[in-house]
């Protein structure tokens, strides 16, 4: 809608925004993992996803920010909350952490990966990717982020798009088969027992 004045539009502001979001996301992610009650974790997860959407928006990925809130925060976590309430789960104690050998190894490996990543970043050795023609200015000039994502998705990525519908179909069928008590089968078994 309007642009910031020059002294604010410098990299200073975006760096500040990033660090704010980064700190918040780290704290809230930690809370998601360590909260004892699953409902608390789910609520922190919502906050985390909301903050991530803010980060995406600050990177001019408007559409992704919107569906992050719409699908992730607004739908997937609702499902988590419903299941927690459905199963009537209680807080579990965090005391007595289990440390089996494979888990410790996995933790160690992921921690080493984390260190390598951080080390590379501070040496400035991130791999250079292929430059595409979609800079933020080019996207804005060609009809905005949503439109460009739509065009790219529905022309270049047509097969993944159609396959996504197959995936959703499979998920629908699988979820119902697994979760729904089959009344027909049940009545058949009861008949047999009689």
């Amino acid at each position: 809608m309007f642009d910031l004045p020059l002294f604010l539009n410098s990299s200073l502001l975006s760096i500040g925004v990033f660090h704010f979001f980064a700190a918040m996301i780290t704290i809230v992610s930690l809370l998601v993992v360590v909260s004892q009650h699953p409902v608390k974790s789910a609520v922190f997860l919502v906050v985390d996803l909301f903050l991530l959407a803010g980060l995406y928006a600050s990177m001019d990925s408007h559409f992704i920010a919107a569906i992050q809130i719409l699908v992730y925060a607004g739908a997937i976590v609702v499902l988590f909350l419903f299941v927690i309430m459905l199963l009537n789960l209680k807080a579990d104690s965090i005391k007595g952490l289990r440390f089996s050998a494979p888990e410790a190894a996995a933790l160690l490996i992921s921690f080493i990966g984390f260190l390598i990543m951080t080390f590379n970043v501070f040496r400035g050795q991130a791999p250079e990717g292929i430059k595409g023609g979609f800079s933020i200015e080019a996207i804005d000039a060609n009809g905005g982020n949503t439109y460009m994502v739509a065009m790219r998705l529905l022309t270049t990525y047509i097969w993944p798009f159609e396959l996504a519908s197959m995936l959703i179909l499979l998920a629908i069928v699988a979820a119902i088969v697994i979760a729904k008590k089959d009344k027909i089968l049940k009545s058949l078994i009861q008949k047999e027992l009689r």
Partner: protein
Amino acid sequence: MGLTMNEFTVQFIATLLKFAVIAGLCINIPPIMVWAERRVPAFMQRRKGPNRVGIFKWRLYGLLQSAADAVKLIFKEEVVPEGAAKAFYHIAPVFSVFPAIMVAMAIPYGPDIQLFGYTIPLSVIRVDVGFLFIFAISSLAVYGVTIAGWASNNKYSLLGALRASAQMISYEIPLGMSLIPIVLLYGSLDLNTIVIAQSQIWKWGVVLSPISFCLFVIAMFAETNRAPFDLAEAEGELVAGFHTEYTSAKFAAFFLAEYVSMFVLSCLAATVFFGGWQIPFFDIRSLDVLIGIPGVSGLVGFGVLFVKAAFFMWLYVWVRWTIPRFRYDQLMSLGWKFMIPIGLLNVVVTAIVLAVIRF
């Protein structure tokens, strides 16, 4: 990028002013609607309704009853139920209120106005994703309901919350689907562009896509948990639904959220299907030049939109006192087995007809 400090200051101050006006509106909508919800049925049932409270001899048809109620609610005792999850119990109203307020900022309340040489849009939030922003933020309103019900440690609250949230998410899909033909027709997600495209009465959304309008109105009632879909607070079975255990100003917060989201959906319906701030056969934007006062078009546009939205608000009350409550299974099968197939068919038919005409 190349803007001066001066322009930024003007736009920032303008944003704050617009924000203050709309926020003030949002806070004042609930008392007025509560008053309307007592006076309108009184009128329908040939009663008087509240007409006593007033200042000295001016009674204003009992309008101040709502103000008195608000003050009373604030000074009531708060009763936190035994065994409630305290933090969540206190934070649930916040989760309920903020989506409603945020969404209200995304409606275009008038045309872009020219003031002191600056173009000032009359909606506070205008983002690239257009009205998907409204859907995204309003989908967060489920958490207020769910957390409130869960944190109260009361089985009526929990059941009411589950019912309400299942209903809200079920009707979010028809609500979203009913607006896809609008995007196809006007080719934009931006609400202001959609309004500008509806300059004549035969270009209105309700004329071009009446099925969308019907779906939207039904989904709108269900989305705000209003009669005939107020299963969440069916007092005969669930006491008061998810806010059974809420008293004083927290109860008022849930009321505020409900009425503000009603107002926003009314505005959205008016914007998308009834031409928003436009009136047929006359371009409001030319008023600035005609009268000679800059910014008058914005006021007139705001008035026009408000009248249209008031119609939908009145429809809410009218329907509430006319149609009996649905059963929960009826509600769910209406949403899933009737509105979703019709919505999909509506999209398909609109797309094919448009493709035949245009390509």
